[in-house]
């Protein structure tokens, strides 16, 4: 019995010793490999930094001629650098990458079975801003892994080819789409040429898609889409989408947005929509909206009156005058010591904020 116990103990001690040795061995091996890679990467890294700092004017051939093992060690750092640069330095670095065949490898990796490899390849192609990769990246928008789709969307935004707009919009129409904010940001990165596609997508059956397109059109300042956006504001079956239409019409800064927004203030419309329209009129910056906004200061809906007061504040001296008139008129009618009505309170709050903003602006201006 004692002999068996001793044998078991010896076997266990052996297993522990082997495990410890294996762990130490692996750690030492990793450390040595890490050091070797760092040593290999040091030269190319210095050369890369000098190359991009000089806007790629000198040293491209030396970088292309770096032996493969040293380049492999320096490549992760070089790829990270690629995403942090723009202008001539970026173009020069892209040219080195293309000469070293990294685009070819990345295009191949888009078909890899590993999602990490697919995502990394998409990121590389985006950082290279390689237009010829757009169709392949669009294919990745239907990848079964959401993290791969997110990287593909970002890469398409970085490349900025408006041809990708429709595929990005279509990719929103699924049960687990990429986040709306990311999609909006990417669609804006595609530039004004994407406006036609975005405008057409306002007829998309999915409310979420319509809302994203409205946000992108607003951020693009797509004045050519004002009538289509006004139609969504009037007719869409979803209140959230109509609110998005009002908000983004305000961002266009065009006279054509004035009438649809004023119509949206009608008392028969939902309060959330009327509040959004009031806010949008302030964003729009049209002084002709002052009388209608001043009338809303006494609105029964708190949010509508509040937004109208702040919209007046944004409309500059004309709006501030209307706010001051509202306070003065109340004082005249009810007396100086009477408790202010809701409309006077909204006006006072907006004027106070306006004063704080002006003082803050003066301080910042003085500091600069």
């Amino acid at each position, binding site marked *: 019995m004692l002999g068996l116990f001793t044998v078991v103990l010896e076997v266990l001690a052996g297993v522990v010793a082997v495990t410890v040795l294996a762990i130490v061995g692996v750690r030492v091996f990793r450390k040595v490999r890490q050091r070797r890679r760092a040593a290999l990467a040091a030269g190319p890294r210095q050369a890369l*930094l000098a190359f991009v700092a000089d806007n790629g004017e000198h040293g491209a051939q030396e970088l292309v001629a770096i032996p493969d093992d040293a380049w492999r060690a320096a490549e992760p750092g070089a790829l990270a650098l690629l995403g942090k640069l723009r*202008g001539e330095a970026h173009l020069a670095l892209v040219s080195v990458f293309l000469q070293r065949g990294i685009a070819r490898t990345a295009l191949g990796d888009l078909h890899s079975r590993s999602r990490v490899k697919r995502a990394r390849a998409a990121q590389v192609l985006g950082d290279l801003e390689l237009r010829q990769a757009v169709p392949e990246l669009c294919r990745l928008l239907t990848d079964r892994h959401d993290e791969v789709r997110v990287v593909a969307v970002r890469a398409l935004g970085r490349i900025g080819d408006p041809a990708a707009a429709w595929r990005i919009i279509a990719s929103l129409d699924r049960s687990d789409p990429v986040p709306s904010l990311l999609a909006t940001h990417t669609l804006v990165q595609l530039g004004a040429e994407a406006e036609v596609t975005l405008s057409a997508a306002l007829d998309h059956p999915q409310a979420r898609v319509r809302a994203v397109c409205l946000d992108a059109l607003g951020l693009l300042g797509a004045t050519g889409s004002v009538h289509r956006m006004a139609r969504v504001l009037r007719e869409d079956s979803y209140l959230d989408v109509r609110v998005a239409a009002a908000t983004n019409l305000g961002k266009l800064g065009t006279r054509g947005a004035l009438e649809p927004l004023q119509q949206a203030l009608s008392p028969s419309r939902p309060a959330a929509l009327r509040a959004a329209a009031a806010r949008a009129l302030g964003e729009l910056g049209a002084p002709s909206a002052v009388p209608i906004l001043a009338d809303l200061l006494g609105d029964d809906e708190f949010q509508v009156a509040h937004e109208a007061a702040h919209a007046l504040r944004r409309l500059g001296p004309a709006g501030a005058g209307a706010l001051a008139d509202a306070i003065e008129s109340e004082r005249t009618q009810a007396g100086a010591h009477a408790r202010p009505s809701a409309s006077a309170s909204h006006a006072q709050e907006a004027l106070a904020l306006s004063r704080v903003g002006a003082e803050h602006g003066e301080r910042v201006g003085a500091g600069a």
Partner: protein
Amino acid sequence: MSTILLVEDDPDIRHLVSYKLTKGGFDVVDVADGLAALRAARENPPDLVLLDVRMPRMSGIEVCRELRAGPLPATVPIIMLTARSRPQDLELGYAAGATEYIVKPFSPRDLQERVEAALARVNS
């Protein structure tokens, strides 16, 4: 020779900007975090600060505020380096005392020109 305090936690960006500006004839003091930046600014007051917004332990906005409250006169330009360019993000920096912004990704040439222009404005 003008002294530039460069505060950036990303070693690639730090080395790149430091290399570019040193080559451009500036004396560059580069540090990797906000506390080191405050120490460096007290020991050797710079003519201009290049300050990353997103850093561990102490954000660029906090560093900017501390610099303005303490060792740095209002005339010394503070240029923020940031990847976030929404108006509300920029406003935070301006309110803390930043002079201008350079948005990442950036061109090293543009960065040097912006630094030179900011120093020229101070000296004029």
